[in-house]
């Protein structure tokens, strides 16, 4: 066998071995995935009590009930259109310090956090920060602005009133 062929075979054998070891060691986790856990996000619900994913219908109900909404997208996107009354708290900026308006929100109140929708992760990142800050009921609207807009729900443009 040529040297290149031998090298390739060795590499493939290492790859196959890795798959086998991973399958054995991670069998319980793979079972959980197969049962449908982690399909929306990779956090273990038990590790983050107070964090829940919600659908657009639930988000709409909470909005109509007057619950606080937080927009985790950039300020620019927020200005172009957002959920009415939503407060702007870009997840990226929040890493260096949460906006002051959070001080005025009750820690036990419901907070709905959203971002662009689709694959966006900033709502989850912000939600985790808010959990650390002491908020106890955070809902992540994973469909985000994309679904909200598509559903033809009310929208607002311009700067944050805060």
């Amino acid at each position: 066998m040529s040297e290149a062929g031998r090298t390739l075979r060795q590499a493939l054998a290492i790859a196959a071995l890795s798959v086998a070891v991973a399958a054995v060691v991670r069998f319980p986790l793979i079972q959980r995935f197969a049962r449908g856990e982690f399909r929306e996000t990779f956090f273990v619900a038990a590790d983050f009590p107070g964090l829940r994913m919600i659908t657009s219908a639930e988000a709409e109900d909470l909005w109509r009930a007057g619950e606080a909404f937080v927009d985790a997208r950039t300020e620019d996107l927020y200005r172009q259109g957002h959920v009415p009354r939503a407060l702007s708290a870009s997840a990226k900026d929040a890493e260096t310090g949460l906006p002051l308006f959070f001080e005025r929100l009750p820690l036990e109140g419901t907070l709905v956090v959203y971002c662009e929708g689709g694959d966006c992760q900033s709502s989850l990142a912000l939600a985790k920060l808010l959990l650390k800050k002491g908020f106890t009921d955070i809902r992540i609207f994973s469909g985000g602005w994309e679904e909200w807009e598509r559903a033809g729900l009310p929208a607002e443009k311009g700067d944050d009133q805060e």
Partner: protein
Amino acid sequence: MIRNRPLLLLFRVVLGGLFIYAGVVKIVDPLGFAQDIRNYRLVGQSLSFIVAVVLPWLEVLAGVFLIAGIWKRGAALVITGLLVFFIVLTLVTMARGLDVDCGCFGSLSRKSGWGVVLEDLAMLALGLCLLMGPRKPRALP
């Protein structure tokens, strides 16, 4: 081609050690790593999960084989292949303007950027030296 065997051994230990370390920190937190992969917005939830489960073991085993000197050329091929992939991934991520953690060394990860590319290029240089290194002298018949 570098023929200095002690130097090549040092390269193997350094590169293998870095890969073992990178793999172990990801093995400890598979879901965190899956999230890091997801953040790149290239693959969906299922593929992110599969990669997060398998890739750390590939890094660890390739590192162990490289240091142990078993199938070392194959291990060097795995490592250089992964590094080329990481470099392309980082450049594509930068071009797309995404602001994500590289996910390379667990909690010690930095933002995807030129620093990560340079680190990977340095490791790639070591990997290529090993891949192209002198063959084991064959015993005379």
